């Protein structure tokens, strides 16, 4: 018997997280708990400092009665699930066509120099990490980036500095 099968569902996560996942499960018909897998992964990722570990994914699998591999499939398919530690602020910079034409290269270069990190890396103080993303649908405000749930548009190196100063 694997360690997984011995997991007790009532002891997984915290009561708050269980309640949050249960709310998602309730959105789907009876017996289709696995439909809540994406939401559950997001909830667990947020709780875990912005990234997923194998243990956490296994817990989601156990909670939703899914084979662990089926959870890994979902978690590796979507780019917004992270499998390595990220900074407290994950700077998602769009480098797709509109942003590129409007100078996203300069934004990226500025961030590389200022923070001393490249794509996928985290600053030493754990404050920032950089992620290259595809179009986020805000071409009207290109170049842009997403941090947390907020879009920052019409970026210039100057506005970027003041944004970074505000991020804890």
């Amino acid at each position: 018997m694997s360690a997984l099968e011995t997991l007790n569902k009532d002891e997984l996560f915290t009561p708050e997280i269980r309640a949050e996942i249960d709310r998602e499960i309730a959105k789907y018909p009876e017996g289709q708990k696995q439909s809540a897998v994406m939401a559950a992964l997001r909830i667990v990722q947020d709780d875990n400092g912005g990234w997923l570990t194998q243990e956490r994914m296994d817990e989601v699998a156990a909670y939703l009665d899914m084979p662990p591999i089926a959870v890994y499939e979902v978690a590796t398919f979507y780019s917004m699930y992270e499998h390595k530690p990220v900074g407290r602020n994950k700077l998602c910079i769009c480098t797709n066509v509109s942003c590129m034409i409007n100078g996203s290269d300069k934004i990226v270069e500025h961030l590389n120099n200022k923070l001393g990190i490249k794509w996928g890396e985290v600053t030493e103080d754990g404050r920032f990490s950089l992620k290259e993303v595809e179009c986020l649908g805000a071409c009207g405000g290109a170049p842009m980036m997403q941090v947390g749930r907020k879009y920052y548009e019409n970026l210039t190196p100057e506005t970027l500095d003041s944004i970074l100063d505000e991020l804890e």
Partner: protein
Amino acid sequence: MSEEKTITIEVDGQTLEAKPGALLIDVTDAAGIDIPRFCYHNKLSVAASCRMCLVEVEKVPKPIPACATQVTDGMKVQTRSPVALAAQKGTMEFLLINHPLDCPICDQGGECELQDVAMGYGSDVSRFVEGKRVVPQTDVGPLIATDMTRCIHCTRCVRFGDEIAGMRELGATGRGEHMTIGTYIAHSVDSELSGNVIDLCPVGALTSKPFRYRARAWELTRRDGVAPHDSVGSNIQIHVRRNRVMRVHPRENEAVNEVWISDRDRFSYEGLYSDDRLTRPLIKKNGAWAEASWEDALEAAARGLRSVAAADADQIGTLVSPTATLEELYLAQKITRGLGSANIDHRLRQSDFRSEGPAFPWLGQSIAELEKVDAALLIGSNVRKDQPLLAHRLRKASLKGAEVHFVNPLGLDLHFDANQVVSDLAGMVHNLAGIAKAAGGSKVLAGRVSVSDEHKAIAKKLKSAGSATILLGNLAQSHPDYSILYGLASSIAESTGAALGILPAAANTIGAALAGAVPKYGAGARPAEKTGLNARTMLESPRKGYLLLGLEPGLDCANPALAKQALAGAECVVALTAYRSPSLEETADVMLPIGAFAETSGTFVNAEGAWQGFGGAVAPLGEARPGWKVLRVLGNLMDLKGFDYLSSEEVRDELQQACAGARPENDLDNTTDGEIQASAGKLMRIGEVPIYAADALVRRAAALQETKDARDAAVARANATVAGKAGVGDGDTVAVVQGGQRAKLVLRVDARVPDGCVWVAAGVPGSESLGDQFGEISLEKV
């Protein structure tokens, strides 16, 4: 059933009849029209992901996949039109983009679907000049070799795990260019049916690890055979090169194994070439083994047995393995009865003989009927590990909504939904008695049982189900109260109308009963003129002479300590064996080397009573000879009549005549109201025989012995309460003690083992010195 309407479609100008709603690819397959495919498999769900089966259909603007298209009346299909060909060629080019084309070093080369289809439908030259994707090597265990760089993402293996094995172990992680098939985290693939993905994989991504780099497909001769381990009798193909079995593949037989075989049937051939194969006859002289000629060894064997028989024929005892062929079993009983003894038995693992049991037992239904039941009650059965393909049928029934119940002395890891009633050995009897009483029939134990709501629910379901079955498994057959369990099961069957069945443990358990390898019935399951001792009493009151066929006394008997003691005290022990087993070296006087699986012709009778014959695929190793020939000569040397057979077919024909009119029947009036032997208050051993310890061949199959199932068997298991009482914890080394004999094992705390029980496997190394499979045991801290 009423005649179903058919519709007419036209494929490549040919008019075909089809059932409405059938898949186009199934219709063309049946008509022999070839459409290339990778992801489609008729036993798996439709993925339509490889796009290789694109065909042109009139009035459809684009080519469509034949595997995901249902036929409609008047449909006009072109499989070789310019549009279809262009689509197939384009798909092929894309599929080959990331494929390494390393055919010269690929095991699949020569039997590769990708290779074949690329030859037929691909371009000569690829236009792809960019870099190819590479997937790092992964290790998924001892049975399957992986080269995922070759994978074309058909997901047959993923769907197999989900839909057939019932254990989703492989998956497609990542996406697009980065998608890979694998386990994601490093662990082995542990399903007991896992080897089938090797056959399913259309490329060389999943290949057989034990077979890797051993031979090329075109060097192999294919010979039909029958799998030698469980009572399914899976049809197999034995691939041979230069008189050596190189690998085993399944052979399609919808009624028996469909297209699958268990890992045990697939990889056990390795055991043929273990170091302790007996290749020359041996005679023990002054306590030391010496090689001998066949003449001397046969002479010594015949002399020894004859001299015992001359003094008192009843001093001859014959123990035969239920994995022996029908012909061997028939001749062994013919010799025994010819010498004037009636002491012969194949039920080596049975300990309760208070009722004789049916003369011609069977599954109670055909194998295919198992997947159609609406309710099933399995008593003392780990069917998933003991008869994996019968479990597969039950799983299909369960998925269709059947209710499956187990009454067991341990909790099982199952791949389908089932209700498990778990208790100690005595509790099993009480639970079954409760169900019997709730079903309203039994006189068995009737006065002394309490009926729970669960018992009532099970009885009610068995009664109301359109088709129900009650099956007695391997654990039940070795239970100290088998006769009571059988009686109760038959009573439940009688009062609920369910079919009573036995899940025979070995490949030829049913054959052994038909061949007369039991003390009360002769050939053809007819009552014998003279009755003798059974497998247990033959050892409890030791005989002076023993004839052993194909067994390892230390590993194949219900009580190895008792068996070894009885054999050691005998004047003459003649063993026909393929292996130099330690327990035979200790106790035998003459060892005659016989052919193992694939080395002899013969017949197995499977659980549903089907006679399945096979020829020898290779000659026996060294000087070994097919068992039936050795027994024939032995019979002649002892001047017994009727041993002048020229072929194993003649032996079979003789038995077949004796079997005329024999009908399998698990009689229902075979009830015993005896005392319950399993003591309730004492600690009892659950001596399950693990999947890869079932017989001599599989015990020696190297790769299978490295699997998780095999590794998990080398421990003692008890729940936290039992462990706590003994003052031991998880991971401690403990001594299990039975009848003064000790074995040291690592203890695993396992909640699946009920109170009052310790799980200590039988048939595995280290268990030889222990006593009863299901006897009293004690647990000591070391």
